[in-house]
């Protein structure tokens, strides 16, 4: 190899010889991964890139072919392509040389473009303009590689996607060209890849979700890719792409759900390998297992997307044979990918009240879910904890057993997470848990969370965390005995926090939530006094009564009405005090207000 590389780099050797060297090296690279590794160790890539500067086309093609073979190997780090900025622009220039340079360069790009950084580099070097016309090349290989290039360039990249819609080749816009490549008599690979391009463009907002090319072309094409007749890899890619396409659009979800019995078709994904062959061939088994995992996670993902918004679809999914069992099994799979997908699917289905009460309960879904939550990586935790949020809703029968299995502790620890989404989910779940809960649960939550942590959360930079924490407080402070109990132990801190928030720069919703907490406190028997003795707070309530926002006025009114409620002991004194503050004048004003809600109070 060293000798070959030496000869290759020797300017003095004839181009024929150098070409032959590149060809031999290319053949070596075709071998095992170890071959490629040792070639990389010999610094073959810089040598070949150097070779591209040669004026001889045959030699360039040989170098590119060899580079292509090396770069498509999984052991080659993609970054090697981007170490020298001039390489990309030189490759772009070589695109015009011959159909072979076109094919190899596109192939290199499509394998080496991982993530937004690479996409941006290639995009800034004019990849879109340089490659677009290759889509109408006479060579199938060139067309296919160019198409693949676009599918990786546009993937989750709005900038590229928005550009693509307006590019035209020979008077035809790229979306039209992609649609032509979707035709059913085209090779499957081509259909699938162009569907991916269109999907990326649709998700980026470059194509509307109700555009016929999505609704009548891309979506049916992707559903076809999920059919049993397709290869395993195609089924996996098809399902994943479709899941991505319909993830956020309920109309597309509805259409996909009725197309070609997709929901039933996906159930087949779990039937691989069909027969458990005798464990004679370990390699084969390993291969089967890998495919089985891929298939299952793809199916879960697609189910998750399908059931994201529509109750009827969720029902259909759950009614599919053994669906809940499959999800439950999926939750305890060894493969992280499958577990994640299964949790996502479960999360999507857990948005259904009916299912929470029936199938979720029947299958004791909470058990494996709680297990997943122990020591799982963050990405799983995020989804699993939001699923837990749904399972902890007041009407969910799973609430009790989940509590018993130590959920409070777990959720409290989540609120301390670095990860914002986990903090939100943690506090959200606690909030749900506290809703109309028993005294004991509430105290457990407070104890588990500790007041310090509670204040930490109240000063969290994220509005969502703040809102859910306030929500938790509000849920904790409901029903009179609970209010009095909590206020007697934590009253001081809570009042402090409330003052802080009302004084701080927060949006209307936050303030409203805070005023509602005050209203709850005012509902307490003993807790009332904490407000009545706090002139600062009373002034604030008065201020919000004449606030321009009706919601805030309403919330403040609640406070007042709770404070002056007639049937309670000492109500007269409180009324007097408030009258002294001039509240009555404001009430008079409000009673003439146009808002009927306010008038009623």
């Amino acid at each position: 190899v060293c000798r070959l590389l030496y000869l290759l780099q020797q300017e003095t050797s004839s181009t024929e010889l150098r070409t032959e060297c590149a060809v031999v090296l290319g053949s070596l690279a075709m071998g095992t991964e170890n071959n490629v590794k040792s070639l990389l160790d010999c610094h073959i890539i810089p040598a070949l890139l150097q070779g591209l500067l040669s004026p001889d086309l045959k030699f360039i093609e040989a170098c590119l072919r060899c580079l292509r073979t090396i770069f498509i190997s999984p052991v080659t780090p993609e970054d090697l392509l981007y170490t020298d900025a001039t390489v990309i622009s030189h490759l772009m220039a070589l695109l015009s040389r011959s159909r072979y340079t076109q094919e190899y360069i596109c192939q290199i790009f499509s394998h080496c473009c991982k993530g937004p950084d690479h996409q941006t580099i290639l995009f800034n070097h004019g990849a879109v303009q340089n490659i677009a016309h290759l889509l109408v090349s006479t060579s199938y290989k060139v067309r296919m590689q160019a198409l693949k290039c676009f599918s990786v360039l546009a993937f989750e990249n709005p900038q590229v996607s928005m550009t693509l819609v307006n590019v035209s080749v020979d008077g035809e816009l790229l979306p039209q060209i992609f649609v032509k490549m979707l035709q059913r008599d085209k090779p499957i690979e081509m259909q699938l890849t162009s569907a991916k391009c269109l999907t990326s463009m649709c998700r980026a907002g470059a194509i509307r979700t109700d555009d016929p090319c999505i609704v009548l072309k891309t979506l049916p094409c992707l559903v076809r890719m999920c059919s049993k007749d397709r290869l395993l890899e195609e089924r996996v890619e098809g399902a994943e792409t479709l899941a991505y396409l319909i993830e956020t659009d309920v109309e597309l979800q509805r259409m996909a759900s009725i197309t070609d019995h997709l929901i039933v078709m996906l159930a087949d994904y779990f039937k691989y390998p069909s027969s458990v062959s005798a464990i004679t061939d370990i390699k084969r088994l390993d291969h089967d297992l890998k495919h089985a995992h891929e298939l299952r996670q793809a199916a879960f993902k697609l189910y998750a997307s399908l059931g994201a918004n529509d109750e009827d679809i969720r029902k259909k999914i759950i009614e599919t044979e053994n669906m809940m069992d499959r999800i439950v099994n999926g939750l305890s799979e060894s493969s992280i990918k499958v577990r994640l997908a299964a949790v996502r699917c479960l999360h999507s289905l857990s948005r259904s009240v009916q299912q929470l009460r029936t199938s979720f309960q029947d299958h004791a879904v909470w058990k494996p879910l709680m297990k997943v939550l122990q020591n799982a990586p963050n990405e799983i935790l995020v989804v699993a904890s939001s699923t837990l949020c749904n399972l902890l809703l007041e009407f969910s029968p799973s609430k009790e057993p989940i509590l018993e299995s130590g959920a409070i502790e777990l959720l409290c620890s989540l609120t301390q997470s670095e990860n914002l989404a986990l903090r939100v989910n943690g506090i959200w779940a606690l909030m749900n848990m506290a809703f109309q809960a028993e005294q004991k649960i509430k105290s457990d939550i407070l104890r588990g969370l500790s007041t310090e942590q509670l204040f930490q959360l109240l000063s969290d930079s994220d509005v969502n965390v703040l809102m859910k924490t306030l929500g938790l407080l509000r849920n904790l402070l409901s029903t009179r005995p609970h209010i009095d109990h909590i206020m007697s132990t934590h009253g001081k801190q809570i009042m402090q926090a409330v003052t802080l928030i009302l004084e701080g720069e927060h949006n209307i919703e936050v303030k409203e939530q805070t005023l509602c907490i005050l209203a709850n406190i005012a509902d307490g028997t003993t807790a009332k006094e904490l407000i009545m003795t706090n002139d600062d707070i009373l002034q604030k309530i008065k201020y919000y009564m004449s606030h321009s926002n009706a919601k805030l006025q309403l919330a403040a009114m609640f406070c007042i009405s709770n404070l002056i409620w007639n049937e309670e002991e000492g109500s007269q004194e409180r009324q007097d005090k408030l009258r002294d503050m001039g509240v009555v004048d404001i009430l008079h004003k409000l009673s003439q207000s146009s808002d009927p809600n306010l008038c009623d109070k």
Partner: protein
Amino acid sequence: GWDKHSYGYHGDDGHSFCSSGTGQPYGPTFTTGDVIGCCVNLINNTCFYTKNGHSLGKFVCLPSQSNLYPTVGLQTPGEIVDANFGQQPFVFDIEDYMREWRAKIQSTIKRFPIGDRLGEWQAMLQNMVSSYLVHHGYCSTATAFARVTDTTIQEEQTSIKNRQRIQKLVLAGRVGEAIEATQQLYPGLLEHNPNLLFMLKCRQFVEMVNGTDSEVRCFSARSPRSQDSYPGSPSLSPRHGSSNSHLHSTGADSPTCSNGVMSTKSKQSHSKYPTLSSSSSSSSSSSPSSVNYSESNSTDSTKSQQHSSTSNQETSDSEMEMEAEHYPNGVLENSSTRIMNGTYKHEEILQTDESSMEDSCPQRQLCGGNHAATERMIQFGRELQILSEQLCREYGKNTMHKKMLQDAFSLLAYSDPWNCPVGQQLDPIQREPVCAALNSAILESQNLPKQPPLMLALGQASECLRLMARVGLGSCSFARVDDYLH
């Protein structure tokens, strides 16, 4: 779907019904404003419904092999249904669906296992090609092909050439000579085939009307050029639909090769390319012609100059055809057998093709406008009538004969036979079936197959497809023989 032998998809519950009152879950429900489609695939006997352009997936309970009729059931009074059988574009992309199936069928055909045992398939293909060339008398092409593929030709060279010559005569409209040549070369053939003879004679009569047959041609000293009106090449290949043009060009190619063979006798300069392909031999012979052209445009020059003067005016394709016409000429020069020369000069032979270019010229007259020729034609007509009566006595009535004769004679009833209800007979294309029949008869008399295996296979394929269509096998609609004849 509730009644016997009925199948349906209900809008109220989205269930499918198969001749029973209980349904199976099938698709979504549908209501006012929805477009519901039903697609029956006759290839794999499946069916699926569509809603607003979306395929709802396989409809399970379809019976195989039965006639289905589209039906729509309505329940509420005043309901309105619009039916679309394709008069408007469908919402569902049926074209795309058909494309997929066409591609599927065609790839099945392409990948059909042949079970090749050690080159047997190749040998068979070679034999098909070779026998086709021999059958139609593309003598030199066949020889060249045999040499390249290392195969042998069953029929003798001279026999092929004889047939070729006779066919050429028929296609040129000179049926009388063709009959003469046949009688000379294959004595007894026509006597044993009275039907064939009658057909030839009828054709001869038509050609007399046309002014192309030699019996009337000899009278017309005036404008011999306008006589022959066979358009295109004098190729013998049968026509099958769109494949026409291509087969014609092969027909044009092969006689060019025979020209090459001829040249070895006549011109020494060509002898080193005895087996070259048609294109090179035509170019080698056309290069001297272009030199000569300017010198001699008139038809009265030496023979070699005539070659050039005519061939130079043609496109390269028809140039080859011209060379083909030289063939009898070459025989005439070198072997002094004067079979071909007959009663007219070779200028006329040479000009036949050129005249085909003037075919559109409307100045066509009965028997070439010659009075003596007309008389000869009428006399021939009488002979034909007698022959017909004689045949009738010997073999009984033959409606086919009667029709042929009637059609032929009807031509005389019109002032312009070319533009009359039976004028189609005068179309040179009508010579082809006659020519093929004669060729087949000759081959049969030599104990050779009367049809080349290639044509047999083609015919079989077409017939097979027709049979498939009759028994309702859908895949035949995506496998047309024409698709494979380019």
